[in-house]
């Protein structure tokens, strides 16, 4: 039973054109996510996990069906509105960290707040708080090239969390990390989920991640197997 529904997916189908035909990545998916969930989309490569995550994140649109995220129908958002949704309510964590290499740790984490036009003093407070969550307050002036993979992913988590989004979408966040760093990262995210009541949705086939999930949604060939 979901307490406060923030994502509702009904009859979601996504086709990608391939040659003269198309490839069906998602087929009639129905799902619902509540506030504060720690859920994961599980399945092998090509099962549609990333496609589903992209549509929830308003980076892509459905071919058919309805996806309502925080009260907004993704199919009907224009470019500005979907950008605004991502800017204010969503956080992303990527497999390969994707930190901006020319900026320091502090500046990378500050970036989402600049888009929100927050004053500098407030930005500073929020950045330092986020870096404290991930234990990197000593590395504020370091560039990504000076950090380990685990530290880079912690910076990425801080960047995703700094604006305190309602939903964080994490696509294979531990794929490039060793076991120790993976557990560290996952513990951090689990703690933030508890403390900030942020909804985390993972796309993963990593057993370590799966072991931390409170809800497991299995996909196979674009269809929902279990939710």
């Amino acid at each position, binding site marked *: 039973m979901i307490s406060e529904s923030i994502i509702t997916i009904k009859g979601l189908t996504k086709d990608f054109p391939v040659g003269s035909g198309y490839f069906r990545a998602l087929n009639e998916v129905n799902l619902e996510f509540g506030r504060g969930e720690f859920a994961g989309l599980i399945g092998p490569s090509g099962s549609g996990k990333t496609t589903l995550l*992209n549509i929830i*994140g308003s*980076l*892509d649109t459905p071919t058919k069906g309805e996806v309502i995220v925080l009260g907004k129908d993704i199919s009907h958002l224009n*470019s*500005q509105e*979907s*950008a*605004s*949704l*991502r*800017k*204010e309510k*969503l956080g*992303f964590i*990527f*497999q*390969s960290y*994707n930190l*901006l*290499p*020319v*900026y320091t740790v502090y*500046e990378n984490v*500050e*970036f*989402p707040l*600049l*888009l929100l*036009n927050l004053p500098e003093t407030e930005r500073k407070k929020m950045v330092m708080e986020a870096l404290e969550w991930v234990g990197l307050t000593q590395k504020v002036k370091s560039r990504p090239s000076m950090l380990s993979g685990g530290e880079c992913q912690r910076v990425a988590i801080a960047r995703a969390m700094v604006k305190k989004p309602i939903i964080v979408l994490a*696509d294979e966040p531990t794929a490039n990390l060793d076991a120790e760093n993976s557990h560290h990262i996952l513990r951090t995210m689990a703690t933030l989920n508890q403390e900030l009541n942020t909804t985390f949705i993972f796309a993963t086939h990593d057993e370590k991640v799966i072991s931390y999930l409170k809800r497991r949604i299995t996909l196979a060939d674009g269809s929902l197997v279990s939710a």
Partner: protein
Amino acid sequence: MIRFLFKGLLRDRQRSLLPVIIVASGVFLTVFLHSWLTGVMQDGIELNARFITGHMKIMTRAYSLDKDQLPNDLAITGSNELTDSLNSRFQEAGWYQRIRFGGLIDVSGSNGETRAQGPVFGIGIDLISGNREEIKRLNLETSVKSGHLPRKAGEILISNEFANKLKVRVGDKVTLIGSTMNGAMAMYNFTIAGTVEFGTSSLDRGTILTDLIDAQAALDMEDACSEIVGYQKTGYYDDELASGIEDCFNELYSKEDDEFSPVMSRLSEDNQMAQLLAYSGKFSGIMIAVFILAMSVVLWNAGLLGGLRRYGEFGLRLAMGESKGQIYRSQFYESVMVGIIGTIAGTILGLAASWYVETYGINLGGIMKNATMMFPSTFHARITPAAFYIGFIPGLVSTVLGTMLSGIGIYKRKTSQLFKELEA
């Protein structure tokens, strides 16, 4: 946000230093080539004006029709009076009589037989009267390679190359064999006072300079001359002024039904000069257009490659909540910054190189040795006011245009595609 982006731009050399170098290089080439071509054209025009066409030229109507044949039987008579009249009526210019003639130079041996002979082009100008205007105009003092300028009647200057070919030296006597104004054979002895290098292959091949009075004596042209050339006192050719003087003169002095009446033409009406003047005006425009096109392609590619390299960054920024429009605008601002910095750097370098070539010149005499048109052997650049801003057209416009064109890819690609490239 602007400060944030600017910081990134400065730190990422592939986004700042490399494009600035590309833009600066293109602008450098544009500025330098503009100055160089302007200099070459103007050097050519001025050289021709100094030696051949003048800013304005008076000939008889009949002479003007066959002027390339140097038909001195159709020369101006009563030239002294006409010159005085011109000097008093048209004081915006100075007026000088000249005789142009062709013939043979014969060099005799110790027994009086011909030792060497060659066709010659001669110019009779005022060399020894004490008025040094023509000497200055033709830059003769610094062109003398050996000997000295003629000091008395019967002395000539001979082009250095021609003297070497004839194996004559300063002090040797040579005989001009030609045709008098009346069509009789002319033979006149001269003494070589000095050898000169005119700096233009067509003159250096075989030219002598005589005093006007000597030429008149040699060719039976007393109180006559081939042409009267006029030079505007500003030192620069002004077509509008020349046109006004020309109209006034022709109305007063020229009669259409009298082939021996004088007629004035101006520099821009000379066949070769007209083309050269037209080219010099259009050439810069064509060159700038070609450069804008070429640089747009280069910078478009640079922008495209830079853009492709940054699709990952764009994907991230989209995920963070920036809109495509914001990213496109930030690219625009970046390209404006890169364009301005690159253009200023390129313009400074271009002006420095142009100044060097303006001062010292580049000697291309070897290439120009067979030229039939008069061009200087040493080419100089000429820095004009346009050189200070011409680089902004390709430097700024093309850079921004190239970036804008490559940036369209952001709009053409789906957000999810950019996002996938981020993950690639």
